[in-house]
């Protein structure tokens, strides 16, 4: 399919992309995006409660099974969740965000529990972490509920998600103990795709939209090869070839989507 290269579009882009004052009506898609986010935060809260309950009950297998599906809703709305850095870090940070890695007392949240479940094989020592995760997620939902969604942040979220995958997920660093990274990919792609679905119709350059949609289709085509049951096989099953392809697609989407705000007259 036709790939839109930035170089090729530069000439076109030199002129303003969207009618300067954006009489574009972004109100409806913003409202719809807000709905999408609240559905996902609700799911996140409910799923986290179940996950935390399993962790605290020492039901290791059950907790392991709930881990990836619970995170899915979080990954879909990551650009919004990340607006609250004081919650995003305790919920989703990784061991290497801390100087003492896994041994660091500040290392909490999903990945600390992932470490307990898959590596330590026990949970009795992390009940406080589990309680805190539930409290943090609940607080996050409350804050998102009261948030007015700035259009530039919402639209910019699409490339933020792709940048995230490109910078720190494609390598399989995110879910390194459980190897459930492909679930997170799915969440991030879904979240970015949602934004494109909602705002794409307002973009004038239809070739651009078609190219972005084509790249999403290729992403899903690749991910589909790794589906199993409700979710995905282990990240380790991802072949080098497919990892490279995903990496190129993600970077291309990140480049292209980095122009989305301008295309909608947002700055």
């Amino acid at each position, binding site marked *: 399919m036709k790939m839109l*290269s930035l170089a090729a579009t530069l*000439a076109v*882009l*030199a002129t303003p992309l969207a009618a300067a004052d954006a009489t574009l009506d972004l109100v409806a898609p913003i409202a719809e995006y807000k709905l999408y986010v609240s559905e996902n935060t609700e799911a996140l809260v409910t799923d986290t409660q179940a996950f935390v309950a399993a962790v605290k009950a020492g039901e290791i297998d059950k907790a392991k099974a709930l881990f990836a599906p619970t995170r899915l809703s979080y990954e879909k709305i990551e650009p919004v969740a990340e607006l609250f850095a004081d919650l995003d870090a305790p919920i989703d940070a990784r061991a290497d965000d801390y100087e003492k890695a896994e041994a660091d007392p500040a290392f909490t949240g999903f990945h600390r529990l992932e470490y307990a479940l898959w590596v330590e094989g026990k949970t009795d020592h992390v009940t406080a972490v589990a309680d805190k995760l539930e409290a943090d997620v609940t607080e996050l939902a409350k804050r998102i509920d009261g948030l007015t969604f700035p259009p530039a942040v919402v639209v910019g979220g699409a490339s933020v998600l792709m940048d995230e995958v490109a910078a720190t997920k494609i390598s399989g660093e995110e879910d390194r103990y459980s190897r459930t990274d492909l679930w997170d990919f799915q969440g991030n792609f879904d979240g970015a795709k949602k934004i494109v679905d909602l705002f794409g119709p307002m973009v004038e350059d239809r070739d651009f939209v078609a190219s972005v949609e084509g790249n999403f289709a290729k992403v899903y085509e690749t991910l589909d090869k790794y589906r199993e049951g409700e979710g995905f096989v282990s990240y380790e099953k991802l072949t080098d070839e497919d990892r490279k392809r995903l990496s190129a697609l993600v970077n291309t989407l990140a480049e292209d989507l*980095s*122009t989305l705000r*301008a295309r909608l*007259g947002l700055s």
Partner: protein
Amino acid sequence: MSPSPSRRAVLGGLGLGLAACPFSLGLARAETAPQAPALTAAPQAGASSASDRIAPQGRFQAGIVTPRPAWGLVAAFDVIVDTPADLERLFRRLTDRIAFLTSGGTVPELDPALPPADSGILGPELRPDALTVTLALGASLFDAHPWLGPLRPAQLTRMTGFPNDALNPDLCHGDLAIQICANTQETIIHALRDLIKNLPDQLVLRWKQEGNVPVIAPQAPGVVESARNFLGFRDGSANPDSADAALMERVLWVHDAAEPAWAKDGSYMAVRLIRNFVERWDRTPLAEQERIFGRTRITGAPLDKRDGTEADVPDYAADPEGAATPLDSHIRLANPRDAGERHLMLRRPFNYSNGVTKSGQLDQGLLFIAWQASLTDGFLAAQTRLNGEPLEEYIKPVGGGYFFALPGFGPGPDDYLGRQLIDAIGHAPQKT
């Protein structure tokens, strides 16, 4: 001696206005210097300028016999191509960027609501700054596609470890190596970021190493010395004369009947990331250091002509026991000077300095880059002879790969790097 060795010929042509003295490597000794290793001469302060321009077009790619500027990098990529048309598109896009970057010009100004058109690190006006961008293909690219496999250069293989190697898989191989060289670090970084930004759908970065060579104070007219590596020795003294076109034809440029026709005027590129244990080296007696290389540290003179210059040629026949130049010294093993031109290669390395190892030692070394018409007779033969050399105690190859530099491209609007290969795909004999 020939009055106009490489430096003046090449730089003069570039309008660098180098001093007129034709000699290289020591005035008085010039007549004893059959070679003019100006290719790897230390750059002199004030001699280069941001307006130095090296045309990318030509029978050969730029960046091989082009005098080495102060900065260089090699970045290895995996490429996303499924069809010959994809590969052609990759080559054409790369050629476009290379043509733009090496000539300089105004960076397009975009709507401020957009990400800017480039990284901005060179400001709004790009100047060529002696930039060269050289493309070379890895064996994995040919192996990945049945339509490309039959066209693989005959000696292009995947690098395998030598006895002293500790190869890190994250620093090895690649479908495509891009060598970028320029006067300054910011120019090579700008070019690399430009390529990555403009071709995200076809280039996936595997590894990258940049390096530089020390810029020395301005010398008297005609005085040229090889740049020093991180072991403190002049490196490049015995390089074949890159200004001797006939010699380069034999040593560097592929035209062997055993090679696919498209590969003519290309060259094999051996890249090695070789860590130097510099703390240990600095604790080694000078006399031993010199015996390890076979040259003196200060002048680079061969040990059998200690008072000479780096341009002097050692006489091994007169020293069969290795009394002056030990038999296992680096230069004597690398080139015993007993096979004529057969084992020559052109070395054009850079020094790298990366950070600190887990043990608290400096992670420094050599971004070794060697070019040759025959990988077997050049790099592989030399490295095989060097296996077990005393220098190994101080070095550790950790990465790199073998690549094949494409032939050059012409100035015509429809020519591009890699066209010979793309044309050949159309006529490739089908494997039966």
